[in-house]
């Protein structure tokens, strides 16, 4: 028996394959497509205190090996989430993590406080990429002081494990990561989407209604790897890797670099069977290389010259 389980602070996952927020709905959408209980963990689409309708179309653009999105975090709000979406998530045997955001730091606190009252949630992931209305729309992880303050405030109300999801659109992602670590985060996940843009040359209009949006998909993997490498070099808490992962080789690259687990995002849209297939392939890899557990591969990057 190969031990595929991984530890992320206080959380133990049956394997390191998680599904990224906003790319997996509330899991129910996949129930007939893949055996959900085989996943390491499911992360929900971002939930906020108040419902949000989302941005006007056009919201998505396909690019070579990647895509842009400006969805605008549409969701039914935390109360409706508990009524409509949680029941199915509670029926799953796999680990469920709820991704949370707020317009202000208080929004994060209020949302998490409400979720603390309900069962079936293993932890929270805080989406620090969303705009902070108190700071003119800059993201919560655009400066270390704000990231520290919000993490501390949420930590006070959250008994469950806390993962902070970091944006790559900063000068130093590890500085923000350290601020979260010092203020009680159990782990960080990186990266959220990169700011990107596309122009229609016929109409000379931006392709997205919001002009710029978030860039994701296989094309961003090298950037994600570099950010994860920076984080694992500087932080002591676990790092969960996100960004362009679509194959078992991609997963291995991140694990070798030092990620404790990975999240699959954009790939779920076009290859919804990818997550469980990659779990099987990772298992086969371990057998082939006679690994007793995944810890034999995590953080084994050889940088000697």
């Amino acid at each position: 028996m190969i031990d595929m389980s991984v530890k992320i602070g206080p959380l133990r996952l049956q394997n390191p394959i998680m599904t990224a927020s906003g790319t997996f709905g509330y899991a129910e959408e996949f129930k007939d497509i893949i055996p959900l209980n085989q996943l390491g963990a499911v992360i929900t689409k971002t939930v906020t205190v108040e419902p949000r309708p989302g941005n006007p179309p056009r919201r998505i653009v396909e690019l070579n090996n990647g895509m842009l999105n400006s969805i605008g975090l549409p969701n039914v709000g935390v109360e409706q989430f508990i009524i409509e979406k949680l029941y199915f998530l509670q029926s799953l045997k796999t680990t469920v993590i709820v991704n949370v955001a707020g317009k202000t730091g208080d929004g994060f606190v209020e949302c998490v406080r409400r979720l603390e009252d309900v069962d079936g949630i293993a932890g929270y992931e805080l989406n620090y990429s969303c705009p902070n209305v108190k700071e003119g729309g800059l993201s919560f992880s655009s400066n270390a002081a704000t990231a520290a303050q919000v993490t501390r405030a949420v930590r006070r109300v959250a008994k469950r494990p806390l993962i902070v999801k970091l944006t790559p659109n900063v000068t130093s992602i590890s500085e923000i990561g350290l601020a979260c670590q010092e203020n009680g985060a159990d782990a960080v996940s990186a990266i959220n989407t990169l700011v990107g843009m596309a122009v229609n040359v016929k109409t000379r209009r931006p392709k997205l209604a919001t002009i710029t949006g978030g860039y994701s998909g296989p094309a961003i993997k090298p950037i994600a790897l570099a950010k994860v490498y920076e984080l694992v070099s500087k932080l002591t808490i676990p790092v969960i890797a996100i960004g362009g992962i679509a194959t078992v080789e991609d997963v291995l690259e991140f694990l070798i670099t030092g990620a404790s687990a990975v999240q699959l995002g954009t790939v779920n849209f076009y290859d919804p069977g990818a997550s469980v297939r990659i779990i099987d392939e990772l298992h086969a890899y371990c057998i082939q290389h006679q690994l007793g557990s995944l810890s034999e591969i995590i953080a084994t990057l050889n940088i000697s010259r």
Partner: protein
Amino acid sequence: MAVIPLNTHDHQPIRLCRSEIVSITEIAWETFVLRLKEPALSQNAHPGQFVEIRVPRCADILWRRPFSIHDADGEAETIDILFHAVGRGTEALKHLQVGDVLDLLGPLGNSFHIDDHLTEAIIVAGGLGIAPFKLFLRKTRQRNVPTTLFYGVGKKEQLCRLDDFQPSAQVRVSSVDGSVGSRGMVTDLLIEHLRTVPDMERKCLFVCGPTPMLRKVQEIAAQFQIKAQVSVETIMACGFGVCVGCAVPMRFPDPGKKEYFLACKEGPVFNMEEIIIHD
């Protein structure tokens, strides 16, 4: 005018299928019918529903491509896709061979609601908007609903074979250049028809086509007080409700809460009066 409750198929399982190509035929200018062996889908597909196809051997094409289910033959266990080669993905599809296996996700979306009490189902199709209506006509024929088809194309070469449709519907064709049928817009034929027929209450328009046509039909439907169901096309990254990219603005939004429908899940068929049609 009461809004028609649309068919939803929330309990119908969505499956990832591996479907073998039985035939691929060019039936009009750069327009192909792809026939796939699909035992399960051929039994339970509803008119208006679609599938998402992964373009094979094109690693740089990220998303699947959505296509209406053109026809489904439960006995032969096949489904048909009617497509026009417009870009990279559809160009690649047209070069596939019999025996190739496609990775397909479906059935997706809701379907047209055909009320048994209709005295006339009036189809308005522009160009490739004809795609969902072969399966539709199977249903109206089975249920003895009298059906009229208004079908507009740009020019004769774009017209898909009519013998498929003629046994089950009254067919009227128009073309922009007059090379087939009457010259002009399909909506002109529609107006002409609606002027002559009574009993709008028990008729319904079923519409699919390019955006300018949809806008025009929306006006006509309002003017003649006739119900209309429309199948819309939006850009789609997933097709099954997870990317939330396929937003269609609601005519009657709940501001700050719900202002958009999802075309892939709550559609692609909508009551025309409930949505804002945009590019």
